[in-house]
């Protein structure tokens, strides 16, 4: 069952952070509400990783850092055969890893 990946929106000043911190980086507030990470963004950088841990049987996986239009950056899997920095991508949620028999869902970016 896919769940959203969320960023934290400060209830006091509205600043978005991802990953979350205990204090809001802007106003030091401690109350947040979850905001799903979604929509489009720009690919900042990417890599194909070959030397993987034991729970992977892929020869490589593609990862990237995306600057999302909603105002935060995120690291995620890329389901893009030939990534280009600067390309537009879209955030989706999918299975990104399997650890201890459990599926972990996370951000998967596709080309727009």
């Amino acid at each position, binding site marked *: 069952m896919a769940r959203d990946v969320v960023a934290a929106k400060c209830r006091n000043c509205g600043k978005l952070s991802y990953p979350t911190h205990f204090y809001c980086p802007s106003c030091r507030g401690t109350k947040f509400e979850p905001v799903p990470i979604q929509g489009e963004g720009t690919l*900042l950088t990417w*890599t194909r990783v070959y*030397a993987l841990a034991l729970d*992977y049987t892929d020869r490589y996986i593609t*990862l990237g850092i995306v600057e999302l239009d909603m105002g935060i950056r995120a*690291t995620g899997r890329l389901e893009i055969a030939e990534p280009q920095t600067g390309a537009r991508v879209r955030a989706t949620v999918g299975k990104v890893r399997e650890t201890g028999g459990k599926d972990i869902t996370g*951000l998967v970016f596709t080309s727009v």
Partner: protein
Amino acid sequence: MRDVAIIGVGSTQFGRAQWSLLKMMCEASHDAITDAGIGERKLDAVYVANLGAPRNNRMAGLASALVDRLNLFPAAAETIENGPASGASAIKHGLHSVASGLCDLVLVCGGERMQEVNNFEATEFVSFLSHRYAEYVYGVTLPALAGMFTRLYMERYGLRPEHLAMVAIKNHANGALNKKAHLRIPVTMEGILTGPDALNNNPWIAEPLRFFDCCPVSDGASAVLLAPAARAKEFQRTPVLIAGLGQATDTHAVHERPDPTELTAVRLAAEKAFAMAKLGPQDIHVAELHDAFTILEIAESEEAGFFEKGKGHQALERGETRIGGRLPINPSGGLKARGHPVGNTGVSQIVELVLQLRGEAGDYQVPNQPQHGFAVNFGGFGNNVIATVLKRGV
């Protein structure tokens, strides 16, 4: 605050250890203790640097075990864990306890025995340093972070694969001169990048980083003995002063850094270390930087202030960072060839600088009697960095 000197150093061979973790650390500690010639004097404290013992070697309370093996009880002891910067952190704690006057003779010993787990497990273990839900769950490994960092560097500063290869070639050549280095086979540009079989010899690890851009997984131990500078003359070796030490942290998730090509923690740590030492980058004669990936030697050399940002690869191209160059970097072979017993590296960098400043580095000695040395120990992917400035004599 008293001045603190390094009065003894020791190190084992790096590579695939034949001894257990504890025995390696005993050997390195014994070498440092003998090097200093402490005789009947007692050690006040022992700081141990290690990352993996509980998980990889089934040992907890490593510092207490080392004290026992070396018959150093009742000396105070702790293990310091700061990822790959554990070594420099342990030295920092040793420095603070002597500088404060609370301790006089302090042993700092680092050690790591990675071979007890296979390469897949080692990769997994090191990837624990990344941010759990924002990076780790995606299969992010340290090479993956370094790969993304390298791509940005190449696009922004015109760094090319040849430059990365030059770091590997230089450090392997240096490692070949260092009897204790893990990797002692020199590599060539044809062999790793431009020749007909290069791309097979040097496969991708995390594009655009290749096999020879990444340091090996090594076992090894090193140790230094610290004393108040005022007492250095009681001992037999030329003392080396810890003139400056600075530490800085940065965001955990690499993507959260405002400019992901900047290693801010390196810059801040270096600035603090230089300020404490009352020296600047132009005063440094030899440096040991944390080249877990070839890109990091270049990037750190810029953040430390040796070269302008984005121009480090040009200095490398001109040969400035070779042993005979203007600013030799990693004359011992660096992490790339000397090896990277993860928790120990920070200590071994200091050991190497002490040998250089004493003029005892043998075949890989930097010429012209270097007086000031500099080290960067890089934790995580740059989220916890310690820089150290050493000065020959007290």
